[in-house]
């Protein structure tokens, strides 16, 4: 069903969605009141995501109280969140929390987005993104916490490097149709093992190598060269937060940028890895073949590609606002407790 009239069309990626747990705003408020004061320098935070695990909804990038670094100094940028929780793949992010609504509005959003894009671009060129692939998912959050009204203005961006010309799609279909039954069985087993080992459960980008006897293995990106000899088919897999049957999710964008600039491939087979109720589901997962034309100036490390990624709010280009007075305002809490 996905196959028809897709040939040669531009790949359209479904945007990442954000979800903010209430605990994040409580933590930000207490940090602001008790520690940060008027210091508005950016703070490194950690977001969480997981592959799509329901047929009807995509998985968002979530931030919670633990997203903030736990050290006593905020310069202690290393979050103490443990690796290995399969439902919490760690994504590095940064928050710019301003002191006033005016400052919030005045933030140079395109500039901030470009700065994050530059970090991703650097990590691609230095090879850091191959070692730690979650760096490809960097996100940006700007916010203003109005602690008089207990309302929070915020805006997420998920920076994606633009391929120019855009990647096109030769073929996209459910993984269960692309693989032979033997391959499908072996890929399912290999993916479930990858997802259940605490060493790899939260590694969102990987390689799927299939030998001529259909035996499949899931391997780290650092094994790319080693895979050249022994695999008959090699796919670039990623945890796809998107549930849509005809579109890959946002993480594939920077992954394609990495693949194209690092390994100089023109044709890429990718696997949008998705789950149903926590287990590999090749009916939901997609396999596609993308054609990439290496963009002009792509070899030049100084020349950072253009970037997109500010999240829309109900299809509009604007920030969001949430009011938590009912759970945070001491006077209201006192009234409801009386």
């Amino acid at each position: 069903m996905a196959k028809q009239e897709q040939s040669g069309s531009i790949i359209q990626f479904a945007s990442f969605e954000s979800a903010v747990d209430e605990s994040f705003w409580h933590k930000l408020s207490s940090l602001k009141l008790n520690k940060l004061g008027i210091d508005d320098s950016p703070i490194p935070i950690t977001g969480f995501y997981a592959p799509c695990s329901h047929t009807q909804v995509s998985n968002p990038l979530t931030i919670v109280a633990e997203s903030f670094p736990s050290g006593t100094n905020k310069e202690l940028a290393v979050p103490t969140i443990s690796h290995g929780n399969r439902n919490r793949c760690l994504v590095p992010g940064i928050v710019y929390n301003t002191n006033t609504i005016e400052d919030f509005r005045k933030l140079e959003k395109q500039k901030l987005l470009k700065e994050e894009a530059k970090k991703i671009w650097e990590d691609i060129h230095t090879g850091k993104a191959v070692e730690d692939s979650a760096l490809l998912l960097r996100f940006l959050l700007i916010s203003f916490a109005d602690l008089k009204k207990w309302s929070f203005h915020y805006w997420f961006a998920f920076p994606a490097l633009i391929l120019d010309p855009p990647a096109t799609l030769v073929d996209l279909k459910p993984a269960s149709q692309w693989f032979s039954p033997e391959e499908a069985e072996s890929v399912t087993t290999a993916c479930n093992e990858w997802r259940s080992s605490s060493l790899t459960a939260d590694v969102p980008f990987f390689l799927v190598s299939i030998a001529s006897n259909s035996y499949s293995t899931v391997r780290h990106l650092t094994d790319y060269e080693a895979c050249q000899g022994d695999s008959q088919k090699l796919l670039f897999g990623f945890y796809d937060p998107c549930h849509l049957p005809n579109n890959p999710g946002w993480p594939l964008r920077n992954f394609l940028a990495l693949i194209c600039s690092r390994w100089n491939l023109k044709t890429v087979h990718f696997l949008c890895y998705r789950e149903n109720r926590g287990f590999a589901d090749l009916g939901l997962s997609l396999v596609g073949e993308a054609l990439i034309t290496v963009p002009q100036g792509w070899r030049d490390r100084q020349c950072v590609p253009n970037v997109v990624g500010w999240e829309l709010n109900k299809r509009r280009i604007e920030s969001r606002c949430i009011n938590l007075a009912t759970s945070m305002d001491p006077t209201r809490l006192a009234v409801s407790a009386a």
Partner: protein
Amino acid sequence: MMLSQKLHEAFKGTVERITGPRTVSAFKEKGVLSVTEFILAGDNLVAKCPTWSWESGEPSKRKSYLPPEKQFLITRNVPCMRRAASVEEEYEAAGGEVLIDNEDNDGWLATHGKPKDKSDEDDNLPSMEALEIDKKNSIRSIPTYFGGEEEEDIPDIAEYEEADNLVETDPATLQSTYIVAQEPDDDNILRTRTYDVSITYDKYYQTPRVWLTGYDESRMLLQPESVLEDVSQDHARKTVTIEDHPHLPGKHASVHPCRHGAVMKKIIDVLMSHGVEPEVDKYLFLFLKFVASVIPTIEYDYTMDFDLGSYSS
């Protein structure tokens, strides 16, 4: 919160402080769990249904009788495609519900209790489409914190229209990425919500306790009151109340655990009368199955395609 509820909370808090957690198993006798059994059953849930995981919650709210990394269980981003109220209309039409326990009229309801034989009676039932079009009872708007009526302080969102040029005309970005139900008409967009469902251990009642945090279709937090629309209407505001979460900030809807032990005891008795010896590590599967009768449209995972216990015969 009503005064009686407050008094009870205070009493319960005091009892919890001065009594130790249950250590002796009374699973089969009373339908309750010791702390160790809760962890055992939780580990089993996480292993069989990996969308669930243990979390530690707010450090200041940690319970010393639970391991720091296993304070409560949570599954996030669970779809809820329709409001329970509209589903109940369909139940009414399709044969209604039966009480598991009808001694005092506050018992648990078994959904799908008496499913009618659809094959021969479908014709004279109103169709699902007809019911959904009947707008007078369905909930159309989703009040969120973002758009609550009393928040007239919130500045008009139009003020935030961007001065700098953020219009991104990128052909590789898929336009309109709403969480859309299978048939993308306006109605379905409004109906789609997601939930974080968490399970805590209630030391006073010695049973698990379920909490709901809801989000609208653009993943904005729902007022706890709106969450009651996704609770079986027989339970809303009776067995389901809005209270402080023991491990997370804010008010959340919760299925009150006062009758959990009794209901679990009944389920266990039924199993045992069929010669099945229930195993305590399966407790949460049974528990979540009965909770599904309270929140029928929240599609969390409690798959149970394995034996509930060992056959004793």
